[in-house]
């Protein structure tokens, strides 16, 4: 019974994405991107990825929207009208065809006998019980692959440093 809900959400996502690509008013486009993130969070819940869902809802729909609205207030929100070109369509169609061809020999969606479910994941679930952390995602994130999370925080630090240097420099030049 869950397939119609997923199909509906995918349809809404597709409509939202097409609207983002078409809209010339960039404030509206960034609000549509926020809606896109929120809808995808709903889909993540259906795919049992609750942690990914609330991260997407908070960071994707929240922080990213604030950032793009802030940038738009500095750059202007109208996109100039340009005539459509054929070349992007061709590139996108070729990429999509190649990717769909690549999925054809993949295990089906939800297949419990797929290879990725037979290694590592059962160990992590068992290890999570041993470490007495109920959420397996937290266990892997903070314990088994804690150095990945450390690397992630380093990446975020570098990005913040880059943003500060970029905007500080431009303010100094302006004065």
């Amino acid at each position, binding site marked *: 019974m869950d397939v119609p809900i997923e199909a509906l959400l995918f349809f809404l996502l597709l409509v939202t994405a097409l609207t983002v690509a078409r809209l010339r008013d*960039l404030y509206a486009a960034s609000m549509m991107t926020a809606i896109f993130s929120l809808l995808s969070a709903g889909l993540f819940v259906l795919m049992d990825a609750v942690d990914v869902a609330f991260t997407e809802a908070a960071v994707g729909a929240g922080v990213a929207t604030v950032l*793009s609205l802030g940038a738009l207030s500095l750059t202007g929100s109208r996109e100039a009208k340009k005539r459509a070109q054929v070349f992007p369509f061709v590139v996108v169609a070729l990429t999509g065809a190649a990717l769909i061809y690549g999925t054809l020999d993949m295990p089906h969606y939800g297949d419990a006998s797929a290879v990725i479910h037979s290694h590592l994941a059962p160990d992590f679930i068992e290890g999570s019980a041993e470490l007495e952390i109920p959420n397996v995602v937290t266990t892997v994130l903070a314990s088994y692959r804690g150095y990945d999370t450390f690397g992630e925080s380093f990446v975020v630090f570098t990005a913040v440093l880059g943003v500060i240097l970029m905007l500080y420099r431009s303010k100094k030049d302006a004065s």
Partner: protein
Amino acid sequence: MSSYLGLWHYHACILLMMVGLFAVISRQHLVKKILGLTITQVSVIMFFVAMGKVRGGTAPILETMNHDAVARQAQDVVFSNPIPHVLMLTAIVVGVATNALALSFVVRIKESYGTAEEDEVLAADHAASVAESAKEHSLESEAT
């Protein structure tokens, strides 16, 4: 054909990714390109998360820490694969960080060029390089 029907989630993710990619390639405003990049990124994340789904499974959160109970749970409760979830959590946060950096670049470009449209920026660059070479040429002809 019916054997490919079980793959439609993946194909839907690819379709969304194509829309995002189209926005990145064909639109000229740089903020619009970044919005397209966000859509592409969410689609790829969704593709990975879809691979971790087990039909009839539930979110990978244990109900009890008791080992016997865990052994019992393993028989009748199926969890979806937590590994794609962990990797994609990292991807979302890093994606927003790169987004922020890209937007600050756009703000900087707007301040320098007075526009955030890619083709106008390229035209301004071209005009500047033409003016530069013309100036060099006139200097050379003055020297000779």
